[in-house]
């Protein structure tokens, strides 16, 4: 390890976790903290000391980043807790500074990274992950650990990854050929569960300034998450504006294998097997999570932000008022001058307390709120993934249906086609089916058509094609089952995290404002006493 103590920042961030999570006892009593930060020997990066069970390791920010990436790859279905983002371009432009030099920023990062670690400990999958364990406990440099794993290339789409990467994957060979579905695919009639777009009934932001508006005092660190509007999550679902937010989600109708003439817009609820009700909960919960996130993003956090702004402006104005009173002392007689002095002091102290309030509010409330938002976003992503998996499976089902229908068509009239060629109609249907609804599918077909001409689609290929589809469908089914098993735990985890966090936020608001009121009250009572004493002594 090449860490040296040149320029040591000692920062004690908040220490122990007092969470009581429902049913996740193993993580509840673990104490993990980031106790200090240290600049490296050549001053080019900062390392954070992770203290756990009386041992500590030093990790830098990029280590955390790569850990998160790893978790995403390994458990694409999981809700991975978020880490604080890098400095967004905007806030960097406003206040160019190096992250490693700014004590405030380092404090913010330490707090958020600690929160991240604590949440990881609650997560059912992550906390038992061996690499996470290594991250926490082993003094080996993270780069070494990473390079010793055989990771496939980073650009793999999560739809082609198994939902739980640590278990041996029986379908590994089939993974790379799984079809990719786009989230806003408009499906053929038979069965696609319909998600509802969160309509504009969520209140649009009112007069609150956006989070990137100019700020006077300290710059509240913003990652790029908050700057963007939530594009991906809301477009993840097909829109049909005739429905309002609260109507029940549709359930896919699994029992039909034949292409039935069901209108794609119809909503059927068929709570026969538990899987379906899970899906229903999934969708409605997704909506809730999205709503929550949007609300936090657009409403709660900007209004808290502007309150913070107000408080910080108050601080400077109060101290200016104090000095205005002070400057009057020189011009007045002793008696009045003393009074003026006393009240000047009072106002200056008031200003100090306002600054304290602002700092506490920021670190205990605002930052946590941002983290909640990010966690919600992560949850949305995971839920989206699940939905995509379901869509993938449905797509495969459709394909199977189409191919089996072709097969039956084929076999029913062999004499009409002496050759192995299919007639143009069938070919069109197949290519329609094969095209899928993906760019890759279309590209594939285009290339085939170009290369092989009309001989590209033959009966054998068709049968192989069916076989492949069946295998893939198998995979998809398995995946969905695994995911379903996971869902409950994940949702528990998410709920636990969010409610603890929000409770902490509420308590923090309480505590900081009470403290502010208390100290101000004491100061002003004392001021009043002093003034009375002065008047009496004349």
């Amino acid at each position, binding site marked *: 390890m090449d860490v040296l103590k040149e320029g040591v920042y000692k920062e004690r961030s908040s220490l122990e976790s007092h969470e009581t999570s429902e049913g996740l006892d193993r993580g509840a009593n673990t104490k993990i903290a980031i106790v200090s930060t240290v600049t490296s020997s050549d001053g080019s990066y900062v390392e954070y000391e992770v203290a756990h069970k009386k041992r500590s390791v030093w990790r830098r920010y990029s280590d955390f980043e790569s850990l998160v990436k790893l978790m995403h790859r390994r458990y694409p279905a999981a809700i991975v807790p978020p880490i604080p983002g890098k400095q967004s371009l905007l806030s960097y432009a406003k206040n160019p500074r190096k992250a490693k030099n700014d004590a405030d920023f380092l404090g913010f990062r330490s707090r958020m990274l600690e929160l991240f670690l604590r949440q990881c400990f609650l997560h059912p999958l992550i906390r038992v992950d061996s690499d996470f364990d290594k991250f926490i406990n082993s003094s080996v440099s993270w780069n070494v650990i990473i390079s010793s794993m055989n990771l496939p290339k980073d650009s793999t789409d999560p739809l082609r990854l198994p939902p739980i990467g640590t278990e041996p994957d029986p379908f590994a060979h089939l993974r790379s050929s799984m079809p990719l579905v786009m989230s806003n695919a408009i499906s053929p009639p038979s069965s696609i569960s319909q998600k509802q777009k969160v309509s504009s009934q969520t*209140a649009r932001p*009112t007069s*609150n300034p956006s989070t990137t508006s100019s700020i006077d005092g300290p710059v509240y660190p913003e990652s790029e998450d908050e700057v963007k509007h939530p594009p991906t999550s809301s477009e993840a679902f097909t829109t049909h504006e005739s429905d309002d937010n609260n109507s029940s989600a549709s359930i896919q109708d699994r029992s039909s294998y034949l292409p039935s003439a069901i209108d794609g817009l119809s909503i059927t609820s068929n709570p026969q097997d538990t899987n379906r009700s899970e899906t229903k909960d999934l969708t409605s*919960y997704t909506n*809730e999570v999205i*709503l*929550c996130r949007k*609300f936090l993003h657009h*409403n*709660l956090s900007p*209004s*808290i932000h*502007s*309150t913070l702004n*107000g*408080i910080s*402006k*108050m601080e400077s*104005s*109060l101290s*200016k*008022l104090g000095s*205005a*009173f002070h*400057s*009057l002392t020189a*011009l*007045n*007689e002793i*008696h*009045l001058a003393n*009074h*003026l002095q*006393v*009240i000047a002091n*009072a106002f200056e102290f*008031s200003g100090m307390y306002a600054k304290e309030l602002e700092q506490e509010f920021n670190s205990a409330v605002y930052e946590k709120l941002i983290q909640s938002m990010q966690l919600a976003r992560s949850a949305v992503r995971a839920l989206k993934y699940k939905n995509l998996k379901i869509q993938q499976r449905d797509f495969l089902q459709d394909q199977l249906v189409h191919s089996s229908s072709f097969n039956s068509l084929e076999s029913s009239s062999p004499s009409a086609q002496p050759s192995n060629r299919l007639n143009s109609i069938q070919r069109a249907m197949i290519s329609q089916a094969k095209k899928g609804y993906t760019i890759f599918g279309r590209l594939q077909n285009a290339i085939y058509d170009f290369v092989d001409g009309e001989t590209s689609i033959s009966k054998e290929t068709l049968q192989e094609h069916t076989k492949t589809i069946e295998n893939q469908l198998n995979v998809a089914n398995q995946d969905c089952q695994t995911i379903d098993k996971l869902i409950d735990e994940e949702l528990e985890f998410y*709920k636990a995290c*969010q*409610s603890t966090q*929000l*409770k902490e936020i*509420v308590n923090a*608001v*309480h505590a900081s*404002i*009470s403290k502010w*009121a*208390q100290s*101000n*009250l004491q100061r*002003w*009572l004392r*001021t*009043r006493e002093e*003034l009375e004493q002065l*008047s009496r002594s*004349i």
Partner: protein
Amino acid sequence: MLSSTNSENPAPISTSFLECSVTEPRKELQGSRDAHVSYLIITKTNSPLFTRPECKVRRRFSDFVKLQEILSRLNEDCVVPPLPAKHKLEYIKGNRFSDNFIYRRASLLNRYITRCAFHPVLHRSPHFIAFLENPNWNNYVRYFIQPKLNTTSKLDEFSDSLLNAFSKLKEEPTEFDIQRDHVQQFMLGISNLETSIQRIVRLEKTLETDYEDVSAQFDRLASLDQTLEIPVESIHQALQKTGEEYSFLIEKLTLLLDTIKDVQSYAQSLKELLKRRDQKQQDVEALQEYSSKLSLERDKISSGGSNGFSFSKTFDDLRGVDHNDSRLKRLEQVQSELQAVEQAIQEASIVHEAFNQRVREESKLFDNVRQSEMLSAINDYANVHVEFFTNIRELWLHAKQ
């Protein structure tokens, strides 16, 4: 309330007292073109100058303005307390009947009347007394006072011809110069203070809306996410009430701000008084210069006329006028003029000295008033803030349970 005794000025404590208060604003003649607000003035006194020990009259703001004009014109050597500004903006906006505005104006008028009552010269002014007790103020003004306003004093005649508004005083820094500087600096400091307070009040207004907003958001949070049990009910209430407390604070601070503004305009009046005094001094000095010029001329004449060639001599020769005669005549003229001027100077000096004395008194008065008002303002500030923070703390302690 200003009392008639103060420790700085060991003046004999007067046995008479004069108490006035301005209360009960009432809207009169609403709907007509002459809609206005009238204020009730209650006077209690045992001074023999008044006809009755207790009087109650109703006056409107323009009556006050008229009184102000009268007092300042006829009592040039006094610092007449300033009236609250006419607030033209509110007139245009049509807000002059709002309760808040009326209340503020009533308290400012109250302070004005009290100050006048406290003033050693003004409160004996017959016009002031008439204002307080005469039920027919308008007639009084028209028939008795208006003509007087149109006459000018003898001193003014002289000084009008000699006035040079741009000449400077003699160089010695008199006590009044020091005082003027002092007042100037004080005004600067006060206006600085005033802007700071105004800024704080503005910020507090934004904070109030912010708190209410946050409280509303927390409320929505609770209703939004039923799966998460968050104890937002208490916080929602507490935040909202915090916002309300801020609005009370703002009201009270605005009143205090009015006090500060008042002191500021009082200082301004004192400054104007000092300027007037300076002008008078200039007049006197100009007179003195004239007199010295005249005596020079007289000396010149009596010493035998000019040596050498002079136009007047040749002219006289041409006209056939006797030199000596004309010289004697001229001497007489100059003598008499000199005498008149000397007399005027004497009178002027007496008046001027009296004026100076009054100005000194006014300055002392101003100091007293300034001190006591600022002291009470400071005390009020402390009280207001104590109350504010007590309430907030109570709120949040209560919310915790």
